């Protein structure tokens, strides 16, 4: 049994290896980009808007609202990063209803890449908001004794972010795989349904945690 879609190699030439994770990620990126281009080709501000525009407006304003509620006062600035995280993870988990599809989020390499980008985004947004000195000074709070713990927590939460998403999605596909060998007729469908629910919840949690981390890094002293 495969632990992750990394081990399914589709094409190999020299040191270049295309595994299932990379190809699925590319397909999702392609679908999302083309979809976004098609939907935003003719946006209207008045009259009857298309159904797809309504859908995208709901999604975008929903994400904006969530970012604002966490405590970031200029959601438009963070919308691109957090919205992309949420939409990519949600789509890659929801596509699990397609037969033969293996979610790229069930591979530790994808989730580590997402978590590392969150790690750098927190640092960059923090420096942008508070300046380099102000951001570095936030590691010394409340006292300088907390410095090593603050640094450890920075790395351990990145690690936790990656492992959480990987573990949830991997265990979902793994449980369905194991159940298929025991009770192949009806029960795996319910586990698949549960997997879809966990997938959406994990997408929400990943992006909300990224937002919380960014909000903690960009909080100015006055607030």
């Amino acid at each position, binding site marked *: 049994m495969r*632990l992750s879609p990394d081990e399914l190699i589709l094409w190999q030439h020299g040191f270049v290896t295309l595994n299932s994770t990379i190809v699925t990620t590319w397909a999702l990126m392609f679908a999302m980009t083309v979809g976004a281009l098609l939907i935003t080709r003719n946006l209207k501000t008045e009259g009857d808007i298309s159904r797809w525009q309504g859908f995208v407006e709901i999604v975008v304003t929903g994400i904006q609202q969530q970012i604002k509620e*966490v405590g970031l006062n200029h959601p438009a600035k963070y919308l691109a990063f957090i919205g992309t995280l949420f939409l990519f993870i949600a789509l890659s988990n929801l596509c699990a209803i397609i037969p033969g599809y293996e979610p790229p989020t069930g591979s530790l390499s994808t989730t580590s890449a997402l978590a590392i980008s969150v790690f750098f985004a927190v640092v960059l947004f923090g420096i942008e908001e508070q300046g380099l000195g102000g951001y570095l000074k936030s590691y010394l709070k409340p006292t300088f004794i907390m410095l090593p713990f603050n640094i450890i927590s920075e790395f351990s939460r990145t690690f*936790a972010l990656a492992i*959480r998403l990987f*573990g949830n999605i*991997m*265990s979902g596909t*793994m449980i369905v795989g194991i159940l298929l060998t025991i009770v192949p007729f009806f029960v795996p469908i319910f586990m698949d349904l549960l997997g879809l629910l966990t997938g959406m919840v994990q997408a*929400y949690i990943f992006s909300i945690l990224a937002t919380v981390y960014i909000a903690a890094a960009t909080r100015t002293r006055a607030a």
Partner: protein
Amino acid sequence: MDSMTIIAIVSIICASVTIAVGSIAPALAEGRSVATALNALAQQPDASSTITRTLFVGLAMIESIAIYCLVISMILIFANPFWNHVITQASAR
């Protein structure tokens, strides 16, 4: 018993003990936090969105401990480094 059998037995027992013991504490913690959140929701229905969001984030934090245990036991069963080491040694001989 040769070393392969011992490694297999120890890995399987460790994997089951890891997931069994490792899910006790997160289960208790999640029960407590959901019960407290329900109390808070019953007292202040207006703050439901904030409470629900904080609850989800907290549940994710607690759940990640159980997920760590799951990952460890999965590694012990499906991608055991000791087992692979013994296999490569046996095949080299």
